[in-house]
């Protein structure tokens, strides 16, 4: 293993971690201090998350902003669109649960197919956009359910560490620095929100559509472009990692986990651990 290059660590801290974390923390903290309105805080959380991510992406030149093409070049805009759509749907259709769900499902159907899956694969490998859709919608439902059922203040922080961490580890092992940086940036932006949410005891319900689309999209892009020996299962396991929590839809299970929240953290770690283990075994 080569010696740790501190200039790269310093550069990552200054241009990747600090903007992602700092912007998200600052914007949400300021809003939390000046308003108690749930709507205002929800708007601030989404703006903070998207702004942190876009600034970090721009500073590091990770995904070109001006190249509109299905695949990894559209990941940033796809995530931004999903995050904003979730916020707007949440605010304007708060009272209409079935309509809200239909709209969210539509967003999760359109984005993975139109933007994230390379067009060349839609006709030849239709199971890829189907899996993308399934991953995005199950991730979103599971994370929302997690916030509603449990002590939701800590959910963004846990998601940032657990999901973002396993995604970053698999990206590093797949030798894609650009995708690893994107994963770190997403984790930091989400962690920034998570820290403030935990401190001010705020449940952030409408910030999961972005990551729910982005991480499966990132895993798909990495799987299509990697020249490493990492098995496809590693990418898929990370992509659908939060979906393992979909069982929280069943009240009895959810009630049991509500009294044993630490068990839930362990359960949510399982897919990521397996994915990283498989990747490490293939590459080390």
């Amino acid at each position, binding site marked *: 293993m080569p010696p740790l290059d501190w200039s790269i660590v310093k550069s990552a801290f200054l241009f990747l971690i600090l903007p992602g974390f700092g912007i998200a923390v600052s914007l949400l903290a300021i809003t939390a201090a000046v308003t108690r309105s749930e709507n205002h805080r929800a708007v601030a959380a989404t703006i903070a998350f998207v702004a942190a991510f876009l600034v970090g992406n721009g500073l590091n*030149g990770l995904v070109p902003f001006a190249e509109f093409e299905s695949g990894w070049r559209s990941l940033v805009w796809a995530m931004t669109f999903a995050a904003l759509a979730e916020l707007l749907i949440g605010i304007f259709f708060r009272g209409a649960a079935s309509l809200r769900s239909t709209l969210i499902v539509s967003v999760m159907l359109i984005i993975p197919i139109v933007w994230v899956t390379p067009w060349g694969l839609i006709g030849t490998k239709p199971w890829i956009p189907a899996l993308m859709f399934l991953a995005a919608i199950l991730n979103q439902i599971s994370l929302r359910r997690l916030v509603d059922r449990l002590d939701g203040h800590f959910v963004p922080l846990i998601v940032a560490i657990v999901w973002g961490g396993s995604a970053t580890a698999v990206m590093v092992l797949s*030798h*894609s620095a650009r995708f690893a940086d994107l994963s770190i940036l997403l984790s930091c932006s989400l962690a920034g929100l998570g820290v403030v949410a935990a401190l001010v005891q705020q449940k952030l319900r409408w910030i999961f559509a972005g990551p729910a689309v982005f991480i499966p999209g990132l895993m798909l892009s990495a799987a299509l472009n990697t020249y490493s020996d990492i098995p496809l299962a590693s990418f898929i396991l990370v992509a659908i990692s939060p979906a393992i929590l979909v069982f929280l839809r069943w009240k009895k299970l959810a009630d049991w986990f509500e009294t044993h929240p630490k068990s839930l953290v362990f359960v949510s770690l399982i897919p990521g651990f397996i994915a990283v283990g498989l990747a490490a075994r293939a590459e080390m």
Partner: protein
Amino acid sequence: MPRMSGWMLSVAVIVTSAFVAEAMAAEFKLSGDNTKIQFEGTKEDGKHTGSFPALSGTFDLGDDPTKAKITVKIEMGGLESDDPKLTGHLKSPDFFETAKFPEAKFVSKTIKADKGEFKVTGDLTMHGKTKEISFPAKIASKNGTAMLSSEFKINRSDWGIVYGKGKINESVKLTIDVNAK
């Protein structure tokens, strides 16, 4: 009749000259066996080298190198480097993105004599972008062998390969060595 002979002689001279010119500009086939294209990328604390062994092309070279024509196609998926892990990384979207851009191409436009050597100018297409480059080269044809050697630098960001700015130097050294029979 004498006028007819003169006319026929002129035609014969023109046709013969064309055949001679054609014969003088021999076409040499380029492959990974007779053409070595190597690169050297640098960063603050080190460097890495690699090559493009999967290539094909032609080198039309006669007695006058300024009339030569070079066309080279490189299969980017075949690139090699001094570290197998780096090879995979170079093929990824961080650098050449070979799944999307499987081929690079160089087509010469002009070759001019320049201070005892030659200056080759042509279009280099790589990573989906085409840019004109010029580089100094030694060109010779001896005993049925076409030879070209050159060493020059290109700026990778000119082809949109921008990842790692500040960590990996923009300038990449290319070394070309042709010995085609």
